[in-house]
């Protein structure tokens, strides 16, 4: 999940290149001395551990993809479990001081530190994921996760027998709210009586409560679950109780071989590779992008065994529609919980409105 802070991330840091090792031994990160053709030095900083199997793991896949794509032309490093504020700033200064040419900062919580450090190192290119501040050497990038939610909602609307889906969510912030709304709108497009029951956990990660919430939703009639959390607990509970679920951030089919219908996969690699290429070409410019399924930023895991051919066809139609632009997850008419018309028929929400979404649609 973008912009999150993993609880306890100040306490722990483990292998390869930990924050603590970095601070304890200045120069631990010193890049190898310049050779005949100097390598482009790229650093990633993560808010959580690479081993989270979700959000941070997907960012690290992008780093590996860069290394694989450019081979000897680049040198990539990462620092995991970085805390926000002062700590992030120290790590950034150290990276820039040690000669990094490009820094990918992968959490919303790093944004202010990046803006400050970027001023001191104008020659270093910063790429900030899920933020909103740009500068001459700071670009911003994000993914349209809600597009994947719309495909999941379509499947839920067609496959649910009870007409009720359970949604285990972290905090009511726009990023989460837009996911719930996209899911609900898509499900109700298939089944106008469909209902989505939302349970808030008030934490990004608490497997025990996520499982309790999943159980509570199943007990109350939900036969399809989805979540906006960091652990696989909801998928695990769905598998144990014999209902269906959608994976979040990464393919969870290992945990829910029969339960998983599909999963929303964050694919940061295409953007990161293109940006590294632009630095190599000398064509890098700061910018602000919000990439979706069209650009390959949001991907869906292969459909699970419970997806019927008609549902598969409908989901594929939505997917193709979103990619070619004929389908928009937030196309009107959109009516909120209180019955107010938020978006008129024939109109679609602008990106600005989507990013500020603070209402729930009917059915949620």
């Amino acid at each position: 999940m973008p912009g999150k802070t993993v609880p306890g991330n100040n306490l722990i840091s483990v292998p390869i290149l930990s924050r603590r090792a970095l601070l304890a031994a200045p120069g631990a990160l010193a890049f190898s001395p310049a050779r005949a053709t100097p390598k482009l030095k790229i650093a990633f900083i993560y808010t959580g551990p690479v081993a989270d199997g979700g959000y941070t793991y997907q960012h690290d896949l992008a780093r590996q993809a860069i290394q694989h794509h450019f081979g000897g032309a680049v040198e990539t490093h990462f620092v995991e479990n970085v805390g926000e504020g002062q700590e992030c700033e120290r790590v950034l200064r150290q990276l820039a001081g040690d000669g990094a040419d490009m820094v990918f900062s992968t959490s919303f919580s790093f944004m202010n530190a990046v803006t400050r450090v970027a001023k001191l190192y104008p020659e270093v290119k910063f790429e900030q994921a899920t933020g909103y501040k740009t500068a001459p050497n700071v670009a911003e990038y994000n993914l349209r996760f809600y597009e994947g939610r719309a495909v999941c909602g379509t499947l839920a609307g067609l496959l649910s027998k009870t007409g009720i889906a359970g949604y285990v969510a972290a905090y009511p912030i726009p990023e989460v709210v837009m996911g719930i709304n996209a899911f609900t709108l898509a499900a109700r497009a298939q089944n106008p009586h469909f209902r989505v029951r939302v349970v808030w956990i008030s934490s990004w990660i608490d497997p025990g409560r996520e499982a309790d919430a999943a159980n509570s939703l199943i007990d109350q009639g939900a036969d399809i679950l989805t979540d906006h959390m960091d652990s696989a607990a909801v998928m695990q509970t769905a598998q144990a109780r014999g209902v269906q679920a959608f994976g979040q951030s990464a393919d969870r089919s290992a945990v829910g071989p029969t339960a998983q219908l599909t999963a929303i996969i964050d694919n940061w690699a295409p953007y990161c590779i293109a940006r590294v290429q632009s630095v190599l070409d000398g064509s890098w410019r700061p910018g602000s992008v919000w990439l979706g399924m069209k650009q390959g930023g949001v991907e869906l895991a292969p459909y699970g065994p419970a997806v019927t051919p008609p549902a598969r066809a409908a989901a594929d139609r939505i997917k193709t529609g979103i990619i070619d632009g004929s389908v928009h997850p937030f196309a009107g008419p959109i009516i909120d919980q209180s019955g107010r018309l938020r978006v008129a028929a024939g109109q679609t929400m602008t990106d600005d409105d989507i990013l500020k979404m603070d209402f729930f649609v009917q059915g949620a």
Partner: protein
Amino acid sequence: MNVSVLVPALATATTSATPLLLAAMGETVTERAGVLNLGIEGMMLVGAVCAFAIDSASGSQILGIAAGAFGGAALSVVFALLTLTLAANQVASGLAVAIFGAGLSSLLGAGFVGRSVVPLAHLHIFLLSDIPVLGPLLLRQDLLVYASVAITAGTWWVLGRTRTGMVLRAVGENDQSAYALGYNVIRIRYLAVLFGGAMSGLAGAYLSLAATPMWMEGLTAGRGWIALVLVVFGAWRPWRVLIGAYLFGGISVLQLYLQGAGLVAIPSQILAMIPYLATIIVLTAISAGGARRLAAPACLGKPFRATT
């Protein structure tokens, strides 16, 4: 929300209460011996990762549970060495153990993220488990749920009804007198800390083997701190601690069911405050003097040095 949901809701509450009860029961014994161990969260995490690792390596749940208890106890030895042998500050040492345990568990568990194991089996007695209401609540739980209640009963009996319990309480109430009477205060406190560590480890094992059969960093999500609060809430009495654990487990699960039903009478943030608010009220009542009988063990948190 209709009544038919009540039974599964109560069954889920048991899952939520059991780890709290196990950890709080261990801490009750530790504190009755006069030692304040704030490291429950760290010991739970180490217990959870040890249980998961051994279960997935050996395929044996009993070995996994034993490893959980052993892991928690092993970390409590570090605490005991610092505070009992070296007479270091218990609050600082406890916090250090909590933080160290969190780091150690994520190091040990790095290779187990994303894997899962077979969840702990639930009891099923032919016909009896199918009795409406009582069946699912009383006769369809897993081994550790029954164990946690049995341990509560055992703790109550040992603390209140046996010579061992009396000696342990004497050490917690007046260590110098107990020492003068010839009791080995340090040894008794070591055993109490070890018991507390093993129970925290068991609580962690319950999370990683039964509640959510998986491992990930920070799996306990603050439950160790809640257990600590429950000991005070229960005024160091085993059955009251059990009531506290079930009350808290029940409230937090009920809140999830109410949300799912679209009935949110009280904001979730307020519900989350309840155990802490209740503890503040209990503490206020105790220090107001109305309930001196419920006060903390007199030597709680004080380092012991033999005088002679």
